[in-house]
């Protein structure tokens, strides 16, 4: 999952980005409203975390413009404005969630996860393919009853593939959703990761390949017929 956080207070942004990255998200950050708007237009984010009081363009304006352009990305408002009017205005404007400062970091992470689930029309955190199950909220994956030890980035990749199970996911899509801006476009980071993931989901007793390569198109996770 790839996130964008637009928050002008550096001392708040740093720990939040740290926490989100540690939870397996790819995170892009900025402190400027206008820059945030352009980034939201250029890149496909799964969730955008938006402060309201921003230099350049304020959060309300960014949201309105994005929605007017047709972007359906879930947006979470993170703000100090706490009155009922502010909340109602924000939600009516098209925000998907509203969190008031100061917040518990756990709550922020949980809400972001819920929003990203919504993005893929997942109502429960459980994903399954064959004997491979993945719990998004518990951050656990199991195959044939055995727990898989996956580093956060691979977990994220597996989750992404499983959310699009039965559909071919292109390399570019994977790049865009799992890696932040710092990933170099020329490297074969995706191939390396897929390779590592394949290895990781093999367990003694169940090693049927689930991730298949479609040459020229991308990868797909499905049960082999």
């Amino acid at each position, binding site marked *: 999952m790839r996130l964008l956080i637009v928050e002008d207070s550096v001392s708040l942004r740093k*720990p939040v980005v740290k*926490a989100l990255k*540690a939870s397996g998200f790819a995170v892009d950050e900025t*402190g400027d409203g206008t820059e945030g708007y352009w980034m939201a237009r250029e890149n496909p984010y799964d969730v955008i975390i938006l402060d309201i009081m921003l230099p350049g363009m*304020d959060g309300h304006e960014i949201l309105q413009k994005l929605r007017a352009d047709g972007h359906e990305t879930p947006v979470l408002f993170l703000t100090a404005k*706490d009155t009922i009017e502010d909340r109602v205005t924000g939600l009516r404007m098209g925000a998907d969630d509203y969190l008031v*400062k*100061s917040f518990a970091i756990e709550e922020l992470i949980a809400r972001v996860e819920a929003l990203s689930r919504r993005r893929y029309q997942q109502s429960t955190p459980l994903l399954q393919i064959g004997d491979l199950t993945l719990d998004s909220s518990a951050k656990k994956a199991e195959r044939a009853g055995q727990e898989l030890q996956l580093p956060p980035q691979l977990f994220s990749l597996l989750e992404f593939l499983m959310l699009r199970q039965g559909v071919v996911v292109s390399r570019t899509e994977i790049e865009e959703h799992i890696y932040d801006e710092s990933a170099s476009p020329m490297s074969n980071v995706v191939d390396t990761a897929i390779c590592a993931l394949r290895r990781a989901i093999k367990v003694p007793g169940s090693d049927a390949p689930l991730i298949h390569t479609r040459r020229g198109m991308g990868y797909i996770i499905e049960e082999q017929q």
Partner: protein
Amino acid sequence: MISIRTHLLCCLLPGFAAICLVAGMGIYFSIKYDQEAKLDTQLTELVGDIRLRPQSRDSSRRLRDRNAMIAEFQEALKRKQFDWTQLLQHLPAETYCQLQLGSPETLIKTANLENQHLPRPLWLTEKATFYNAKLENGDVVRVRAEKMSLQKGARGPKILIALSRKDLDTTLARLSKKLIAGGVGCCIIFVSILTFALNISLRPLRQLGEQAADMDAESLHKRFSEQSIPADIRPIVERLNGLIAKLEESFARERRFSGDIAHELRTPLAAIRSTSEVAIKWPDQASPEDFSEIAELSTQLQQTLDSLLLLARMESSAAEAIREPVKMAPLIHECAALHATTAEKRGLTLTLQLKAAPEINSDPRLLRIMISNLINNAVEYAPEKSEVILSSNASTLFECTNNAPGLAPQDIPHLFERLWRKDKARTESGHTGLGLSITQSCANVLGYALKAELNDHTLHIRLRPS
């Protein structure tokens, strides 16, 4: 305070009643006078008849010269050849007449007098006198008394002739009753018309009162309607509306302020909380930097709270200024020194023009706060490597001049607003936007004037004794 209505009624009603009374009395007495004059004329005519009648049985002789007839009459009187009794019989029936002739006086009366005498004054003259009298039979009469004049000083008879004035009195009594009834009726009509008129005229005031009763802190957006208000009270209503508009504005400002304060306090708190929570949850990623971050944020929070408290204290009536002799030059030096490091870091040149700096009677603590805030502002916001000039003289206690390329003329009125910053988003700079409002409040307490002027991208802020 009695109501306008009662006041008007109490003033107008007695006046109107007095007018009715005067008019009524006027009518009554003029009619009375007229009627009595008519009666008197009647009496005089009767006496005239007496004088003219005597010797003439011949009606044609009445046409003769009046004076000749009178002369004849007087001749006859002198000769005492006069049949008075017969004469009296010719008088109309209800007339009372009494004659006193000769000396000693012989009395000749009309039959209707019977045994009574007509009362008479002691001395009678040749000029007739009229008076009222009451007879023993109960009749009230008007009497004309005269001593008839004769030629050559001979003593003439005294004639008293009277007519009943019962009819006259009855008429007058009836008239006075009618006048009184009419007067009372008029007063009643007047009161009802007055009450009605007052009700209509005072209705706008009553509506105003009802509208005012409905006003409270929540309905400050409403205004009193100025259309159906009479011209007399329109200025009051306009002023009222102006007052309410100012109140509304000030309430809105307060609401905005408390919203802004929430933001100022929440952001550093949120950062402290998140930093600590992340350090707890992912201890392997924690670093000592986190602690210094938390410390810095806490200090920032402390400063914001202190500034707010100071502002609140300055604005409340609890602020009292002490007065003692203060030398401006060393004070300004001191404040400038506090910011020397920041100025150096940003490459700023601090120029001090304090040769003419005065010594004044003022509060050194408040002065220090003001000057420190102003210098802080200049040092933070002046562009790097520019010059900041601090000066002081007898007319301008303190002036701070710096380059301000980012400021526009429309920003100047907002400079001293609480939590106002040029960039609305309040980016972190350790600055809350309260500094200048605190300075303004201190200036108010000391009775000084604080003005900002923007000349061609140079900002001058001047502190003057007003």
